[in-house]
């Protein structure tokens, strides 16, 4: 602590804090424009100049570090006059037209000019009007309103880590430029909008928000982003049931600290998409007709009841969604278990991340990300496997890049493609797809061989090390090179880097899990963490990144066949009794079937209730799924849009968006945060929880909740990790489970003292390499792998309905290596057929050496390109997750 005297009063401040923050924190307002919390101070606007004893002249408060004994004067006549003069000079730089300025009302320059009462500028005002740059899909640059404070430049460099924006020229000609001084839209701008959030004036504004409302006309609601699992906190600015602007919440206790990605900031207009379903639809004679709620719900209730009565409860099933709130997921599984009377409940994580849950539970006793995003700051080495961070979790990727650039974090990237993050990596390994366990075992081989393991940790906290030793001993670097294609030296290098880390952390994604041996892969990563003691401490751990906004929460809420909320097994009689008592019905002790079974196995179920899922795009081998679903007796889809899956349903129930309801999401790092209603549902759509309640009512099981907070109270009462959660406690921030009591602060990282396995020890679970289900051959010589791009998520059901996101990335393309392109004689941008043993698509190509030779890559969000028609439906035996990451294809040029 240091003690400073400001304007004659003594104040206490944290060591190292800057004077401006100290003043602002103590209610002393100092005018400033170039400074913004979270950005490095540059002291260029010269408005925060103050007098400090012992320092010559005036010093900028923003770049002055407080020290004990400092005597500061923040306001006097001289300072005031100089501030005013500088403001006037700034005002004279352009003709600031506030009348139609998008920042009118939130402009910091305007505020200061008003504060200083400047009604006339004594200098001639520069009347030159420079053209707007509206080349970007989402951002408009108005150089006439730019005060050259550089906040956007620093935001781009320090928050987004992109360095797209910078200054050009100098002196009075100084200007803001993008890229190589080109229109913003021509640059590699990631459209994250960090710049415009940082902009104090109207120089950078949201393109699609232009003339959509003035700042005081908006309803402003803080909520949680509905796109990925990052859990970014944002403020929605809505008007007339439209989300017009979005700002990141700049608070320390958020995951994003004000940052957002293109989807969060510019991709929420799907909420007001004209494609939204506004009334229930009932398929009559093969065609949907709009219906009243009552009719639709009666029909649904009757049909499900009929099937239950005729074929038994286990012929019914429900697929929940990672997009719904915790409360809705909870109610959905409760509905399936009470009204249907079955445990046939699953959700889309089955298609991506269940191997994690299985492997982590096996190794540690719980299937969640062990650490949290912010704790990465304590790591010195980060290993990222099968995860394209910049496209998948841009906000987190930026934070990571910042750490890497600061020199405080070493980065190992393992990805067959040379992703953008690979450019930042100290070591980039590019294994052959499907050989993850090989390089993992190879690294372990080196770590054990070179004594880089943590013997004490292994001794005290693990079991099965001998077993591990035996298996990995076979994976010499030479053999690893032979199978995976990763050079020996690189494996050794990576193993040493991770092995020697004082805090090594592992992040992985679906590149690791979506394999028939995905569980083994994750198990291998667990072995890496356990053997080096990189678990149970901040800055370490095994961090699964859930793809969707509430992937973690849906699982927590028990939308899984064998467990109730909180991972409580349905087969445990005590648990069964607890839930029977709470819910007042008899419950089935028999674990249900998985989504894979529901979708791929004919004649297992007769009736299906899908809430928000879109397996017709996300599942493997779509034609097989279609066949199964079309043969169902009755299928209900509850969604915001008429998705590919909804189209084959019998009844479609219109759900409303996250902006129209209250609730909570649990992010990928177990962080439970509020979702808040911004406006009433559009059309006759309803929140999922209401629909479930209504339907339940119709099926004779009364569910009555006044508000989602009541549902959360019930969740807390039945779910030990959530026991301490309430809406009141979540307040503006959030809590990280486990939060077992009402006064528990939440848990930043897991397994600090003990593991949740039966023995309390971490379990090594070594595995040998198995070849993938389908390898390229003469007929199908290419490997197809899939991933995602920055602009789309889920199956595109949200993002395709966002104007900006759609325009930024309208269609999937097939990435192909130049030499492969030569081989099949296709040029960049040309269409090509991709055929597998299961299906065929036509797609445009992008020739790039980002993909390795022999492998083609594409994303899966186009409406008219069903990439998953190609993928294989072989499942991981334990997790039942399909091998979506790899299948054999051939490429054919259209005749």
């Amino acid at each position, binding site marked *: 602590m240091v003690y400073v005297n400001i304007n004659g009063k003594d104040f206490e401040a944290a060591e190292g804090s800057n004077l401006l923050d100290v003043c602002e924190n103590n209610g002393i307002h100092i005018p400033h424009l170039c400074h913004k919390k979270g950005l490095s*101070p*540059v*002291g*260029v*606007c*010269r*408005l925060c*100049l103050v007098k400090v004893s012992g*320092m010559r*002249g*005036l*010093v*900028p408060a923003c*770049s*002055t570090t407080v020290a004990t004994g400092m005597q500061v004067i923040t306001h006097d006549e*001289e300072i005031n006059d*100089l501030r005013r*003069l*500088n403001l006037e*000079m*700034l005002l*004279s*730089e352009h003709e600031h037209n506030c009348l139609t300025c998008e920042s009118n009302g939130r402009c910091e320059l305007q505020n200061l000019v008003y504060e200083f009462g400047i009604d006339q500028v*004594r*200098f*001639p005002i520069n009347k030159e009007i420079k053209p707007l740059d509206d080349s970007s899909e989402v951002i408009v640059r108005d150089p006439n309103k730019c*005060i*050259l404070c*550089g906040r956007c430049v620093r935001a781009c460099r320090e928050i987004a880590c992109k360095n797209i924006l*910078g*200054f050009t*020229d*100098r*002196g*009075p*000609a*100084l200007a803001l430029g993008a890229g190589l001084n080109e229109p913003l839209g021509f640059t590699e701008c990631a459209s994250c909008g960090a710049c415009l959030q940082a902009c104090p004036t109207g120089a950078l504004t949201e393109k699609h928000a232009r003339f959509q409302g003035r700042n005081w006309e908006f309803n402003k609601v803080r909520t949680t982003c509905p796109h990925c699992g990052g859990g970014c906190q944002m403020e929605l600015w809505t008007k007339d049931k439209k989300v017009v602007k979005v700002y990141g919440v700049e608070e320390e206790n958020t995951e994003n600290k004000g940052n957002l990605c293109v989807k969060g900031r510019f991709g929420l207009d799907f909420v007001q998409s004209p494609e939204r379903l506004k009334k229930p639809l009932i398929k009559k004679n093969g065609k949907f007709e709009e219906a009243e709620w009552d009719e639709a719900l009666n029909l649904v209730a009757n049909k499900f009841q009929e099937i239950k009565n005729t074929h038994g409860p286990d012929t019914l099933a429900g697929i929940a969604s990672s997009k719904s709130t915790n409360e809705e997921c909870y109610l959905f599984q409760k509905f399936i278990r009470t009204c249907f009377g079955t445990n046939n409940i699953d959700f889309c994580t089955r298609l991506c991340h269940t191997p994690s849950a299985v492997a982590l539970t096996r190794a540690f006793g719980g299937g969640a990300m062990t650490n949290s995003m912010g704790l990465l700051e304590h790591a010195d080495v980060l290993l990222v496997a099968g995860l394209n961070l910049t496209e998948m979790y841009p906000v987190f990727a930026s934070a990571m890049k910042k750490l890497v650039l600061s020199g405080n974090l070493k980065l190992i990237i393992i990805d067959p493609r040379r992703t953008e993050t690979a450019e930042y990596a100290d070591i980039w390994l590019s294994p052959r797809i499907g050989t993850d366990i090989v390089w993992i075992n190879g690294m372990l081989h080196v770590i054990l061989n070179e004594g880089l393991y943590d013997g004490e940790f292994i001794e005290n906290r693990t079991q099965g090390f001998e077993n591990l030793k035996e298996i990995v001993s076979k994976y010499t670097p030479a053999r690893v090179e032979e199978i995976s294609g990763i050079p020996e030296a690189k494996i050794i290098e990576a193993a040493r880097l991770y092995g020697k880390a004082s805090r090594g952390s592992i992040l992985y994604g679906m590149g690791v899990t979506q394999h028939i041996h995905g569980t083994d892969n994750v198990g291998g990563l667990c072995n890496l963490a356990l053997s080096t003691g990189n678990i149970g401490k901040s800055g370490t751990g095994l961090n699964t990144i859930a793809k969707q906004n509430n992937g973690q929460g849906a699982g927590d809420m028990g939308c899984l066949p064998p467990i109730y909320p909180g991972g409580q097994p349905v087969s445990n009689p005590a648990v069964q009794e607890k839930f029977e008592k709470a819910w007042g019905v008899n419950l089935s002790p028999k674990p249900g079937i998985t989504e894979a079974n529901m979708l791929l196995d004919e004649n297992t179920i007769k009736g299906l209730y899908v809430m928000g899922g879109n397996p017709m795009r996300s599942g493997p081998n779509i034609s097989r799924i279609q066949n199964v679903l079309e043969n169902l007796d009755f299928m209900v889809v509850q969604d915001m849009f008429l998705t590919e899956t909804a189209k084959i349903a019998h009844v479609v129930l219109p759900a409303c968006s996250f902006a129209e309801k209250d609730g909570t999401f649990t992010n990928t790092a177990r962080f439970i945060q509020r979702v808040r209603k911004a406006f009433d549902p559009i059309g006759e759509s309803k929140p999922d929880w209401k629909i479930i309640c209504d339907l339940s009512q119709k099926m004779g099981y009364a569910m009555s909740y006044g508000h989602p907070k009541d549902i959360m109270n019930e969740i807390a009462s039945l779910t030990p990790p959530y026991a301490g959660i309430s809406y009141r406690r979540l307040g503006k921030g959030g809590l990280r489970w486990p939060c077992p009591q009402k006064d528990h602060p939440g848990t930043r990282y897991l397994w600090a003292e003990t593991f949740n396995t039966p023995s309390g020890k971490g379990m090594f679970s070594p595995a040998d390499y198995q070849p993938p289900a389908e390898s390229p051959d003469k007929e199908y010589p290419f490997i197809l792998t899939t991933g995602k791009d920055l602009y789309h998520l889920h199956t595109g059901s949200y993002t395709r309905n966002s104007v900006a996101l759609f325009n930024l990335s309208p269609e999937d393309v097939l990435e192909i290596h130049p030499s492969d392109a030569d081989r099949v004689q296709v040029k960049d941008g040309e269409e090509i057929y991709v055929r597998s043993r299961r299906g065929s698509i036509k797609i445009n190509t992008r020739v790039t050496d980002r993909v390795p030779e022999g492998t083609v890559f594409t994303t899966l969000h186009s409406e008219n390109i069903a990439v998953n028609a190609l993928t294989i439906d072989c499942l991981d035996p334990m997790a039942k997750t399909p091998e979506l990451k790899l299948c054999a294809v051939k490429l054919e040029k259209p005749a």
Partner: protein
Amino acid sequence: MNIQNLKEIRDQYRPKIESRQDPRPLEKGDQRIINIMICRGSGCIASAGETSPYDAFANAIEKYDLKEKAELVRTGCHGLCEKGPIVVIQPGATLYTHVQASDVEEIVQQHIINKEFVERLLFYDPVKEKHISSINNIDFYTKQTRRILSNNGLIDPMQIEEYIANDGYFALAKTLEMEKTEVIEEVKKSGLRGRGGAGFPTGVKWEFAYNAKGDQKYMVCNADEGDPGAYMNRSELEGNPHAVLEGMAIGAYAIGATKGYIYVRAEYPLAVETLETAIEQARNYGLLGKNIMGTSFDFDIELFLGSGAFVCGEETALLASIEQKRGNPRPRPPFPAIEGLFGKPTVINNVGTLANLPLILQKGADWWSEIGTESTKGTKVFSLTGNINNSGLIEVAMGTSLGEIIFDIGGGIPNGKKFKAAQLGGPSGGCVPAKYLNLPIDYESLQGIGCIMGSGALVVLDEDACMVDTARFFLEFDADESCGQCVPCRRGLPLMTHILEKITEGNGEIKDLETLKDIATCMQKTSLCALGQTAASPTLSTIRHFREEYEAHIIEKRCPAGVCAALFKTTCRNACPINQDIPTYMTLAREGKLEEAYKVIKQTNPLPLVLGRVCHHPCEEKCDRRKLDEPLAIREVKRLVADYAYENNIEYQPPKRAQRKEKIAIVGSGPAGLAAAYDLSIEGFGVTVFEALPVAGGMLAVGIPEYRLPKKLLEHDIEQIRKMGVEIRLNTRIDNIDDLFARDYKAIFLAMGAHGERRMNIPGEKLGGVFWGTEFLKDLNSGQSVDLGKKVIVVGGGNSAFDCARVARRMGAEVTILYRREKHDMPAIPEDIEAAEKEGVHIDCLSIPVEIIGNGRVEKIRCRRMELEEFDASCRRIPCDLKDSEYIIQADSLIESIGQFPETEFLSVRTTRGGKLDVDSLSLATDREGVFGGGDAVTGPLTVVDAMAHGQRAACSIRRYLDGESLQAIPTRVDPEKYHVPFAPEEEEYEEKPRVRLKEADVSVRTSTFEETLKTYSKEEAMEEAGRCLRCDAGR
């Protein structure tokens, strides 16, 4: 390399260096080895022709087989860049100037072989009026204190051995035996302050860096010299690079740095090449690199080439640039000494600072600080540029006055122009006006007058410089070079530039000066870095010291220096106090249309016959033709035109505007009164001129001798004015203004001149044969006879003194002019001085009479010699008594002509302390309503045309006064008739062509007659001369 090796090298090369310092000139049969020292500085290279003198010498040495006898040495800059290419022949220190390859053979034959000087190439001293054969006698060198430049011109900078021979690197050797803190203490003790301009104590800076924690520290040399007109660092690096390397190594040792950078401008290729060689040689000798001189001290230096951004001279911007970032300054603290390059403690020192360190460490702080002022020790290198005779690189002791630098070392201002200001510190500095020529230069004294030492750019401005335009130039420079990130600098510069542009275009307002000051203050106080903090200094400084020039631009829409092109049509007309339309009458004259030319002249000039003879023609000083060959003889063409009209009875009275009923009284019929009468008459007023003397014309009639201005011509001009209706009442002395008002005069113009005679007040002034200059002339002019005797002494240096002297000469006397300063200080027109000397007038300078001795009449005069000391506001040195220098001369009479003063005590208007009328400078209004004053009565003796300008101005003010208009406005005088002479500039090549000379009678005739002896042009001559006019007004 250890100290022993170093000594061996020194001993081996020392004789060679010593042989170059032998002052004894070469003599016939001299067997000493001759060193031909050829400057390889950028300036000398630039001024050499296609073949370099070096190559030419090499060839000549080959040709004459002189290899054994002469050695060619390439040296750093000798400093006297104006005279380059420079070659110095040693021994004997003979400096040859402007040596082209074609001169080399002559030098070799005559000097190297025959040991005789090549006179024409020797340095010429314009004051002493002779060639000087040894550097040791050239003021430019003798008045300097060359310490860090001592190796420049002495050694070959590309040979480290020669540097060592002159004790190079011994300071480093000594340093390495000292404790780090001892080194820092020594530097602190010396008082060395940063030579980059800010003057921060070097030792203190080092101490900060020494105490700062850091695993790595850096020593950075700032050689990003960017001030316009600055090339000290360049020459230091080109001429003596090892001193900088040694200084860096000393500093690095003291603060604990192991890595150094020299940030040098890429525009200095020669400096870069020299440095590269020097670093390589130092590394080879183990003076840089690992384990320097066998100690554990490691230090190496890397060159970093700056790309020419001026702001990168700012230390934090410089560091950012080395870090490969945009060269933007950042706020300090943290200071680089704590957090500098790559976040590590870093000392940044200027080239000049570093070059001093070897001296301090080797010779000790006490020796080093012997010279300088209380606050500022040592020497300072300046690059002296601009309007100065000896532009070049100089090094002077701190405390040397600016006057000494400019006039002694710099040799004064070329072309007889007046010194106006010295601009120090470039765009960050300010100007020093003439009144501070005696100021001893150090950091504090310069700050005290709103200027800074700066890095050492010293640009001399003469009277032709417009200070508003100068300020604008620096603002534009800064605006171009500002990084633009901070608001006050980015915005303040264009806003200030805009205001100055407005002013230079004649659209300024007086409140703009306040706005300028406001912005400037804001920039000074709130800019992020020194560039912005100091960018307004030239403006503030010029407003402070030359406010009247700003006001001339703003109020009168006039650029006195004739620079701001928007404010005038041609420089000649701009310079003319009465705004004569010179280009137009020149055009008419060249076409032979003399009558029309006469009319054009008469628009603004009521006394063309007079001015055609006695005008001091400021127009010609500004004539653009001067740049080609010689200025146009404007006055002489006018004289012919006026004479032509006179001889051909051509008369012209300009048309009057509507008749006015008001009557106006003018007191005095001198040029001011007559000009006022003329203009008021044109305005339609009734004008009465009251003249105390029996003749009209004031001093024109009584103070100018017949041979310069024949009476009949003056009378003719006055007659023309009378014909306008102006009444001139002679022998009418006005003692009471109230009487005039009582007689219904509505306004009064007081222009009674300065007829009081200043006296020396020395013993013997009452003796017979003692005369007062104007009285003497008056008496003669009014036909009285004066007995001068044979030997006449005239005291004074003004036009009047010369008139007296020349009259006396015509009266057959032997005449000596005594003048207390030097000839070039005389206020008289140079052509008059020249004419007088031709007529046999003897001029004795630096002398004053102290007693007139005689019995009833002058017999002898006791005189005293003077010596010149400090400068006064007129940039002339003040004469002081030289002790024990009295001498006696014989004389029959003595004419004191040392000035006149107005006699105004009888008037009931406010006067200044010297009895001059106290008038508003713009309107010429006195404190009494309706009463205006002008001419000599206001200013003391004025030139004729300046007095007439007063008359015109007063006329304008009186008209305004009577019309109830504000007097605080631009004096606008509209020509009575408009003459527009179409002029299509011909596609003619202007070739050099000297002016047509007036024919003048032989001296013997001149000294025997009072007739006008200077003959007017013939019509043809006038047409020819007028044809030389470049018509600068074409298209304007």
